[in-house]
């Protein structure tokens, strides 16, 4: 029997909802694909037609949240922000959308975004990375940081961003306020790095 596109979307939504609930309740590691299928009211085999693994499922959720965060950022941006401030706004707006996933996000990001596992990187993780870095590149261009080779700047940035995510996933301070200070400080560090490497600013060329 052929299943309609609408029914497919409904099933996908059911799986994501069930997974989010179970990850939050039991943790990512403790939740099995069988648990998720059962909670979604689907056969385990059917579920694999939608998501090949638990990691893909979790990373899809994160990806969707980050996409929404990207849209929020466009709305929240006033256009008056300086470079560091705009990057700060972009990162923190994304984190607001990820907040519901805070209890289980650590192991998911470790598996899906690890910079040491390029071959095993999941498609959703790679897509999240590309979309995020595209926005960062646009911000850099908007503020005239065009002299540093983009692959260098974005790689430095991505290392810092992963550090921020790792810190945030373990941050137990009220409202994760320690992360705010960490982002503020990290972005200043990044801005200084790319400013120092910018021949216009006279950094390395001197």
């Amino acid at each position: 029997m052929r299943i309609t596109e609408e029914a497919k979307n409904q099933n996908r939504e059911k799986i994501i909802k069930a997974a989010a609930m179970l990850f939050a309740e039991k943790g990512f590691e403790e939740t099995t694909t069988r648990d998720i299928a059962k909670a979604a009211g689907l056969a385990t085999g059917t579920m694999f037609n939608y998501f090949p693994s638990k990691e893909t499922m979790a990373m899809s959720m994160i990806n969707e949240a980050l996409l929404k965060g990207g849209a929020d950022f466009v709305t929240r941006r006033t256009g008056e922000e300086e470079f560091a401030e705009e990057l700060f706004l972009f990162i923190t707006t994304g984190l607001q959308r990820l907040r519901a996933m805070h209890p289980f996000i650590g192991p998911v990001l470790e598996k899906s975004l690890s910079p040491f596992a390029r071959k095993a990187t999941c498609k959703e993780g790679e897509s999240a990375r590309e979309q995020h870095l595209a926005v960062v590149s646009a911000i850099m261009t908007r503020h005239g940081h065009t002299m540093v080779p983009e692959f260098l700047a974005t790689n430095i940035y991505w290392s810092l961003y992963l550090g921020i995510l790792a810190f945030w996933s373990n941050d137990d301070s009220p409202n994760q306020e320690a992360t705010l200070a960490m982002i503020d400080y990290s972005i200043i560090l990044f801005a200084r790095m790319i400013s120092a490497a910018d021949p216009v600013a006279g950094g390395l060329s001197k």
Partner: protein
Amino acid sequence: MMMENREKSLRIEEMIAALPDAGNTGKVSPEILADISKRISLKKMPTSALTRFWSLGNVQTKIALGYLAYRVRSSFVSAGKKQKLLNETHLAAAIRLLATMGYMRGAVMKLGQILANLPDVVPDEFAEILGALHFEAPPMHYSMIREVFVAEMGREPEEIFASFDKKAFAAASLGQVHKARLKTGEEVAVKIQYPHIARTIQADMRNLRFLLAPMRLSADWGSMTEYLVEIERVLTIEADYEQEAAFCRQAGKLFERAEGFVIPEIYDQYSSRRILTMEFIPGCHLQEFLAGNPSEELRNNYSLLISRFWARLFYSAKQIVADPHPGNFIFMADGRLGFIDFGCTRATSVEEQEMLAQLEIAFLEKDPAKIDQVIANACLYHDPSRMSLVQLQVIREVITWQFGPIVSEKLYDWGDSDFFLRGMELNLEMVQKGCSQSMPLCIWTNRMTYGFRAICYRLKCQNYFGRICREERERAQNG
């Protein structure tokens, strides 16, 4: 942009080179101060304990080396040049200290505020540069402010207020203050705390304990440890804006606006542990007030208000305003006095109140034996015979300097530099002679006394201080 700032920034050596030659007064030009401020604004607060520790230790080393270099160099130059060298050393030390304090904010910045308020304790150059700390702390950008609001209140500032100034109009030691207007029309001041500052205070204190570790073999170490615990406790309270709001409300009940006092109203629905929204009080600060050459009558009137404010909080609310730096007072155009910061307020225990009352009674009765007994209690010896004669003599003089005006009926001239300097010298003598053991409360009573007297000294005012204290004591007794 950051690049432009870096290019324009002066280095310390360049700042020193820019000093005038003969007859050097050590005054720092506004351009240099503006540049220092700009340099500091580029620095972000290091929140890790290790980085903060490095900054603290590093600046102490630099300052110590600066003075050592002065001693070596001054051995080979004439007297006139010696003075110039000394001024240069003071200035360089102050610039280094300022840069680090602006960098670290939090607890260490409080030290700058205390020093700046005691113009004759530290060299003039120090006081002038440190004075900049009151209102020139590094800013948080507006996106950070928005995040703090979303985290604390669940909404953005523009959703909560009818208008909200994106730029801060004042810096607070733990954050900054923005002007806003409520949807109901009232103008308010919104104090916002830098994220995670409370934990950085704890890190500062840990570092400070480590730096003071060489003292652990001295007799004062036990007392010093208690002091540090006490300081950490009060600074942690200061980081809790809900507690500050409670102190402010309690004080508000004691002062009538018709009497000349304005304590700001707190707006609870727009406040949290990290955000404090209060009535905006228009006016100026001490420095600007004095720059307008106010009349003697006006200065005396303000000294009366400041003294009564102190005494009423002390006697009726049993509170010690442990941070009486000038930035917390507002001199209003209509002659009233505003007080805007109850963050560093220390409530006293029944035991502490009893000790302070006993000391006052002993002074009022002019009973030396009683005075010595209370001193021994306050210094935790509990028996004057367990104290050395030198200790007893120095502390007796300090207490007389502190309590003399409280129990006297005569007109006090607070601008008398001999009297003010004597207090400073006694404080120094007390430390030099190893008389620092005391109840932790004494940190705050000392700070309160020196702080208020430093403001009155700068006002060059006169008042019947003892009479004010007596009236406020009776007011408290009569409920």
